[in-house]
């Protein structure tokens, strides 16, 4: 019966989405091919939108039974938002033997096993070394006398909340109450004379850095490293209090039917080989301890640091987003 193909011949495939642009291209060129070579599962790479609309649209598509992807790269806060709406499928520990390779903090038992750390990225103290001498090694330099010097991200999403909480209030736990948030925002208000640019879009900050509009500020480490490669005079510093670490997670909308293929990809993503590709070609920080990786010092330094990071206050932001946003706007516009 020549017309019936054996199961072995059936092409297995998976649709995976990541944030568009450089990110998506790097995954498609360097990470997915390694996975396909290892498992025979073909990957179709999809760009996913950034911002609030991503989850809004995904929830609706999932309800309709046709999510546009089988796995998506999800911001830590969207993992919680999606979980609250019953969007994600739970995974099976037995199918992910490599899960235990991840750094300890990414193995902590959450209320549901519906997300697997994919990669991290840092918000660091980025400066123009020509204008800031000597280079600062602490976040407290933000509060020194530097009128109109900084570009700082504005709003509830800004890592300045974590930085202030860690530097002046002993940790991000203070953000778990409205009273604590008020205290942190009052401390941030002391920065107003130093901040020239309260940015919401990273392009605005990048333009300001390239054109010497600001002497420094808080910015993404990975983008700053690309700017250095392109000849811009910037330096990305991991202050002694730590840079703010955000993590992206792989999640599966539960209307996707590709359960086994997705778990095979997750298992692959938890290997040192995959994480090395992420560090080398995507420019993101690996979620496996450095000792297990064969990255050179330069390769590791271009994406991460040995100084312990400040973890993003995701739970606080999930619970108090609207309050943080209102109070921040009130502070910055008054």
């Amino acid at each position, binding site marked *: 019966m020549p017309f019936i193909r054996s199961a072995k011949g059936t092409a297995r495939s998976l649709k995976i989405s990541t944030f568009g642009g450089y990110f998506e291209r790097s995954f498609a060129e360097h990470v997915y091919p390694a996975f396909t070579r290892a498992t025979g599962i073909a990957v179709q790479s999809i760009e996913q939108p950034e911002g609030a609309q991503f989850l809004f649209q995904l929830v609706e598509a999932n309800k309709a039974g046709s999510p546009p992807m089988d796995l998506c790269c999800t911001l830590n806060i969207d993992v919680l938002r999606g979980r609250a709406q019953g969007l994600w499928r739970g995974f099976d520990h037995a199918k992910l033997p490599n899960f235990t390779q991840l750094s300890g903090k990414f193995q902590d038992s959450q209320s549901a096993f519906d997300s697997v750390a994919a990669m991290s990225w840092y918000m660091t103290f980025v400066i123009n070394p020509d204008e800031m001498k000597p280079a600062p090694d602490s976040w407290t330099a933000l509060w020194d006398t530097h009128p109109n010097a900084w570009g700082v991200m*504005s*709003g*509830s999403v800004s890592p300045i909340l974590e930085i202030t909480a860690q530097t002046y209030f002993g940790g991000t736990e203070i953000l778990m109450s409205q009273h604590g948030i008020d205290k942190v925002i009052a401390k941030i208000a002391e920065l107003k004379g130093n901040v020239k640019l309260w940015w919401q879009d990273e392009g605005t900050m990048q333009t300001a850095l390239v*054109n010497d509009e600001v002497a420094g500020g808080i910015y993404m480490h990975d983008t700053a490293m690309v700017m250095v490669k392109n000849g811009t005079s910037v330096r990305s510093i991991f202050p002694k209090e730590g840079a703010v670490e955000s993590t992206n997670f792989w999640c599966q909308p539960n209307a996707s039917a590709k359960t086994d293929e997705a778990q095979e990809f997750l298992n692959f993503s938890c290997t040192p080989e995959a994480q090395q590709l992420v560090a080398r070609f995507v420019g993101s920080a690996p979620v496996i301890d450095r000792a297990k990786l064969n990255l050179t010092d330069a390769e590791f330094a271009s994406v991460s640091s040995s100084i312990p990071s400040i973890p993003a206050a995701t739970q606080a932001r999930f619970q108090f987003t609207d309050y943080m946003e209102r109070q921040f706007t009130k502070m910055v516009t008054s």
Partner: protein
Amino acid sequence: MQHAARLRLALLLSWPTLTLLGLVAIPALLLIRISIAPRDPSGMWSPGFTLHAYRALMEPELLGALLDSVEMAVVVAAISLGLGFPLTYLITRMRRGQQVVWLVFLLTTLSLSDVLIAFSWQVMLSKRIGLSNVFVALGLMDAPASLTPSSGAVIACLVYLVLPFTVLTLFPVLSRLKTDVIEAARTLGASPLRAFTSVVVPLTRGPAMIAFLMAAILTVGAYVPPLVLGRPQHWPMAVLIGSTALAGHDLPRASAMSIFLLGATILLAILTARVARGRRRA
């Protein structure tokens, strides 16, 4: 038979109205619905009714942002009318070929996104390669300086964005304006200024007010230029609506703020129409 034909004609003619109604009414109703819904921290909004979002509108910084929006709109509309009127007048007096070049040029600027334009202004006003270097070369400034963030930068960028609309609105009227009437006024002894205020202005007041209103309405919702080029103290309502909805995940509050801004815009339109009509009667 005649009745059926008339019905068919009515249906044929009514579809643009119905489409317009559908496209305007349905989103507006949805906006109103969401504005009276409770917030849902994990999603958009939850079923149920509450006036919580409206109660929160009475905060001083929101009223301040609303005033900033209206002030920005009026200033930008006045400047673009002040620049656009003489510019359009000059264009209408040109030869046909030159007119086409100007109009095509103005239309071309409409194809650029406002994001791109705002970023271009950010670079153009920067210390390193910006306009201030030209001013220094001309001896107008001592040293190059950064000209953002400032209200002037926001207004300059917005005038650039709305000027083509002002010119295109005024163009048909000004090109139909007969030079004979101005010449007649001049022959009767009116000074050029007098001829302008007593002949040209009354003849073009209506269209000029429409151009003003259009510029104001386009500006009142401006988002990117004030965000990129302005100080937070002067962020208009649109910027706060954006951050409330996208970063704050508070759609009901953002909807209530939008309705608030919509109300102010309608008020501005009514007021402008009054001014146009009231003066004409006098």
